[in-house]
């Protein structure tokens, strides 16, 4: 739902590799149309293509073609050298730019924080599934920020995280702080990622709960009869049963972090302080929108695409390995 409630994160949520195969298999018509329609007019035979034409045309021209064009741009120059082939110059400029290096370092930080961002909704979903008191309310409430635009979330947290704002007042009450959440270069990126997790954990929670609905309840009963503690139940029953859901959430959460934090960055920090909260997507926007350097921006886009591909391939590798073990 989300760059809005994170469109990109949801968009990718439906695209796990496995169910793609399932859909591909299921969509095969059970039976072709009755024979006699074969003599149908030419218009009839062309019908599938007519029905598909708008979708295919739009997707090819406005999604697939730009991808090719973008890679091409990244090997041409900006400004005076507009359109001229420059080889790898843009990539050299890119990796020499401290801002882009910060952006890449922040991607590394996101990877490190990923397990936390997956574990939180996983644990909460477990408790909700085990029916802690109030589980129905929790489910509805936790999911709610996920439908809000990052712009709204960012704007609200601008108020909450202000130096003299509510959070610092609260912390001051217990003798901590005040912390300059969005003004301290060492803190700001954590503040923004924290807000992103706050805004999106409900999405992963719902996916986890859907995974739980496919879990065999008798396994949990058996664990209970055997006197397993909660941590034991989670470790030996729930985690193995939900392996695929967990992997799915890992990948979608990572993709969400890489592609749907623009709104937050734009509203909360503008990439600052001192460029400390840059991410590749923000860098691309700044180079394209502010500095009018489309070729350099395209090079950054290509790098981002490679990062996403690596995430995707890592997922496939993990799936293969677990597939072999089972």
């Amino acid at each position: 739902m989300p760059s809005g409630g994170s469109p990109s994160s949801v968009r990718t949520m439906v695209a796990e590799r496995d169910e793609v195969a399932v859909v591909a298999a299921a969509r095969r018509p059970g039976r072709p149309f009755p024979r006699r329609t074969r003599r149908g007019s030419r218009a009839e035979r062309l019908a599938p293509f007519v029905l598909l034409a708008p979708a295919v045309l739009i997707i090819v021209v406005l999604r697939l073609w730009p991808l090719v064009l973008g890679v091409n741009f990244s090997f041409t120059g900006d400004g005076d050298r507009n359109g001229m082939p420059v080889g790898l110059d843009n990539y050299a400029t890119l990796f020499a730019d401290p801002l882009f290096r910060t952006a890449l370092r922040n991607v590394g930080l996101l990877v490190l924080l990923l397990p936390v961002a997956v574990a939180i909704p996983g644990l909460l979903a477990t408790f909700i599934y085990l029916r802690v008191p109030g589980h129905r309310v929790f489910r509805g409430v936790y999911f709610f920020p996920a439908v809000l635009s990052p712009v709204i979330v960012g704007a609200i947290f601008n108020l909450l995280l202000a130096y003299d704002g509510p959070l610092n007042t609260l912390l001051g009450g217990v003798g901590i702080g005040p912390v300059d959440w969005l003004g301290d270069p060492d803190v700001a990126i954590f503040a923004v990622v924290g807000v992103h997790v706050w805004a999106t954990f409900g999405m992963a929670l719902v996916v986890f709960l859907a995974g739980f609905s496919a879990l065999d309840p008798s396994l949990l009963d058996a664990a209970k009869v055997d006197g397993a503690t909660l941590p034991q139940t989670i470790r030996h029953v729930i985690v193995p049963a939900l392996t695929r859901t967990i992997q799915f959430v890992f990948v979608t959460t990572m993709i969400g972090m890489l592609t749907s934090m623009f709104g937050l960055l734009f509203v909360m920090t503008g990439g600052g302080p001192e460029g400390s909260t840059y991410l590749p997507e923000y860098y691309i926007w700044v180079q394209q929108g502010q500095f009018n350097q489309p070729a350099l921006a395209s090079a950054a886009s290509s790098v981002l695409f490679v990062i996403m591909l690596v995430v995707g391939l890592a997922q496939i590798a993990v799936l293969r390995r677990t597939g072999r073990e089972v």
Partner: protein
Amino acid sequence: MAGRRLTRWVVAVPMAGLALATIYPLVFTTNVAMKTRREYILDRFSLSDSLRWDNIAAAWTNVGMSRYFLNSAVVVTCSVALLLLFGSMAGFALARLRFRGSSVLFLGILAALFIPFQVIMVPLARIMADAGLVDTYPGLVLAYVAQFLPFTVFLMTSYYSTVPAEIVDAARIDGNTVYGVYWRIMLPLGAPALVSVGVLNALFCWNDVLISLLMMPSADHRTLMVGVTSLRGQYSDDIPVFASGVLIAAVPVLVVYLFLQRRIADGVTAGATKG
């Protein structure tokens, strides 16, 4: 047994705390929106003494939120309508018609699902500029349709795959053309999926800021979310009006969430559960 019940409460209390933390930011913002500027500066936490609509009214008229709201409403409505039309047409053809190249087309559309907007935004901006579509409503609508169409086609295809082929056959024997089958049978049958996908797409488009920033540079054409980002600069010293602007942009989403929460959750998990 008593031990177990205790554990449950030990877990439930922090979870209730988290639920509070999930709700509080919006409550705080609403409360601020009801305060006068003076009230806010003196004490930003106390409950506002009255429901005051001045700030909302000020944000709606003075800052141009009404204009932005209208822009968003128009663009989102057109985008969702086109997405549902094109998505269901393609979904029906891919799920229930047999023709050469069907799987190639399906895989091509699927591949497009994995291309993030940030990766193609630079060349897309140039294509749109060359076509004279930058800063126009059709341009932004087209950009949204292109962005969310692969997802829509994918979900509609998987939904139509669950419709029994016999229904289509029967309709054909009754003398319907392929288009007749689509219009009279598949479109009405697809209603549940169309509602779910439609609500999700409406949220995506309504909440977007990056595509809108890129496609609609002039102030008059701003969508609501871009309008909210510009509020901050204009009203940095009048926080209650700023908070009111944020509320105006959030309320439609809240209403949709209250009524269609299940639908949204279903749409989000549609892919995850099918495996």
